[in-house]
């Protein structure tokens, strides 16, 4: 939806007033409901509650009592992070004044402005934030469906799936084959699959050094590719092979019952197979009618507001906003913009211009960390990347160790920001 800025100037005051006045003048405490307690939802709930000092009634709907971050779950696979250290509960978010409901949101009535819960209850809202993360596109990996996730785990939503994958790798036969089916764009955490390969290779190089790793990838290229390939060659020589689309990486099927992977007509016998399917917005976004044919929920670049409904915001992985990668850092960054806008609309607090940013750190081997990041600004059309940076190949060991230490600092920082 392209906007002609000049045309709007004439009616500025009118339109702004129409949008914000009713809420500001509202009677009782205005209500915000947040669906999903991850990096986006957890942050927005906490920031609205914290900064409005009780002037806004904030409800967070999240089925899990303990949230396990996807970020750093690869480090757990590699033996660099404890499983328990990935988990965070909602006690401190609740203590900020957020009403935390552990239940599933099963529907949204956007006319009545209510969210239906699995328990049968309904919660009403003045503003709704939908932050459900991802779901998988059925049929995107031929031969695989979600009921086979114990045979061929995705391990792409953290939690017990990652524990299962680690257990399978630990019990792999000597000299066995680990296969990863990498996802097509766009997907959560662009450097995630490469980091996972690094961590699996690290683990195998210690316990099962003759094992091999095969990546089946439908994409021509991927984030931090040069850095990962340099690192694999240096730390795990000869262990990792990638089959891109030029070699048939876009033509495959899996057979979970027999642990076979068929690539371009050739059968490979896998010992462990990590299937990461194509992705779309979490189901509730679709049920609420907020998604389009892409499977993601389009939002306005200035404030992450749904293009389908002015009272609804979509955050994080589920949104289609433009150039920001689907990451916990992005969701946290977007959440702060949304918290500022919602408080402004409901309480008349000051409105500040949106600021979006992201950095993704990845670990390649012990003390060998790399990063990629960018700044983003809203244009009329989308959230656009305006500058980026990335670690360089050939960096010295000190810098890589500092980058790794920085990533630990970041992890502790972001979870303190959300859950601490």
């Amino acid at each position, binding site marked *: 939806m392209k906007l002609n800025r000049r045309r709007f100037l004439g009616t500025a005051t009118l339109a*702004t007033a129409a949008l914000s006045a009713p809420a500001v003048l509202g009677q009782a405490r205005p209500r915000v409901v947040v669906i999903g307690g991850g990096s986006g939802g957890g942050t927005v709930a906490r920031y609205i509650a914290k900064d409005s000092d009780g002037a806004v009634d904030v409800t967070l709907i999240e089925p899990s009592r303990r949230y396990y971050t996807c970020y750093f779950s690869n480090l757990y696979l590699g033996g660099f992070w404890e499983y328990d250290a990935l988990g965070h509960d909602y006690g401190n978010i609740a203590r900020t004044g957020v009403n935390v409901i552990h239940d599933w949101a099963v529907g949204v009535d956007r006319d009545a402005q209510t969210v239906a819960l699995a328990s049968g209850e309904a919660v009403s809202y003045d503003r709704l934030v939908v932050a459900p993360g991802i779901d998988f596109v059925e049929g995107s990996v031929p031969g695989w469906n979600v009921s086979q996730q114990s045979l061929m785990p995705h391990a792409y939503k953290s939690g017990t799936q990652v524990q299962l994958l680690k257990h399978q790798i630990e019990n792999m036969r000597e000299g066995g084959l680990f296969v990863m089916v990498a996802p097509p764009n766009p997907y959560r955490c662009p450097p995630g699959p490469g980091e996972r390969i690094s961590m699996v290779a690290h683990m195998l190089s210690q316990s099962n050094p003759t094992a091999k790793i095969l990546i089946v990838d439908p994409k021509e290229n991927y984030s931090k590719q040069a850095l990962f390939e340099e690192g694999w060659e240096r730390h795990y020589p000869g262990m990792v092979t990638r089959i891109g689309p030029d070699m048939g990486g876009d033509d495959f099927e899996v057979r979970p019952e027999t642990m076979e992977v068929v690539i371009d007509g050739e059968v490979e016998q896998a010992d462990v197979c990590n299937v990461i399917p194509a992705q779309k917005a979490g189901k509730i976004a679709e049920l609420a009618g907020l998604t389009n044919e892409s499977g993601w929920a389009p939002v306005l670049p200035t404030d992450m507001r749904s293009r389908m409904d002015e009272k609804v915001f979509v955050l994080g992985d589920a949104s289609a906003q433009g150039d920001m990668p689907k990451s916990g850092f992005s969701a946290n960054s977007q959440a702060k913009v949304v918290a500022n806008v919602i408080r402004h609309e409901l309480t008349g607090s000051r409105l500040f211009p949106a600021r979006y940013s992201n950095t993704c750190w990845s670990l390649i081997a012990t003390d060998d960390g790399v990063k990629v990041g*960018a700044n983003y600004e809203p244009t009329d059309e989308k959230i*656009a990347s305006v500058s980026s940076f990335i670690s360089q190949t050939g960096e010295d060991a000190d810098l890589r160790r500092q980058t790794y230490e920085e990533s*630990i600092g970041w992890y*502790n920082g972001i979870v303190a920001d959300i859950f601490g």
Partner: protein
Amino acid sequence: MKLRLVLTFCIGVALTPMQAFSQASPIGDATAGAEIYRRECASCHQIGDGAVHRIGPHLNRIFDRGAGSHSDFRYSDALLRQGRDGLKWDLRRLDAYIENPRALVSGTRMSYRGLSDAQRRADLIAYMRAYSDQPQNIPEASPTAIIREVDLPESVLAIEGDIEYGEFLSSECTTCHQRTGSDAGIPGIVGWPEEDFVVAMHAYKQKLRPHAVMQSVAARLDDDEIAALAAYFRAIARE
């Protein structure tokens, strides 16, 4: 009915004071660029699904590619040499090359007179950008918008920081720097003298201090915003 509601509402959003702060604009008009590409480039260069080398190399994924880096295309020695010296196709280099190919690569074989109209070049490059890596998938990929450069005015240190604005801005910092002032892995920034904070941020902004994340954060903070952050992080230490 629904469509109408959304349209009206978009107008409302575009009108809020936020718009005045926006520093970014698209590279150019890609639709206009498609026509320019057809007239100026298409007789030698293919782009899009199934594009192959013709008189010139195909231009899919040209952004961020090293000059002369298709192993299956025969380039001029001059272009190959520039590639070995590190020439990569980004927004600025492509713009210079299209404006006047020989100004950037003296011995290039691309016999093109150049496109002198800056807006038409911007539109053309916006069109070509769509056929290269997208930052959503490859965060390190070339930007898709242009940000206004901010000049450093005088008496920057005299700006009094707006603490409330600083609190909003600080949420970007606290993704990494903890509000408690802890400095494990990432340095603490709470309670610094305001002047030290301002000087440090400007040093990142001017790329005197070497840290990619901080340079990137500082690059788009203006003087008032740096002052606001300095005031806020000083103020919360007093609480």
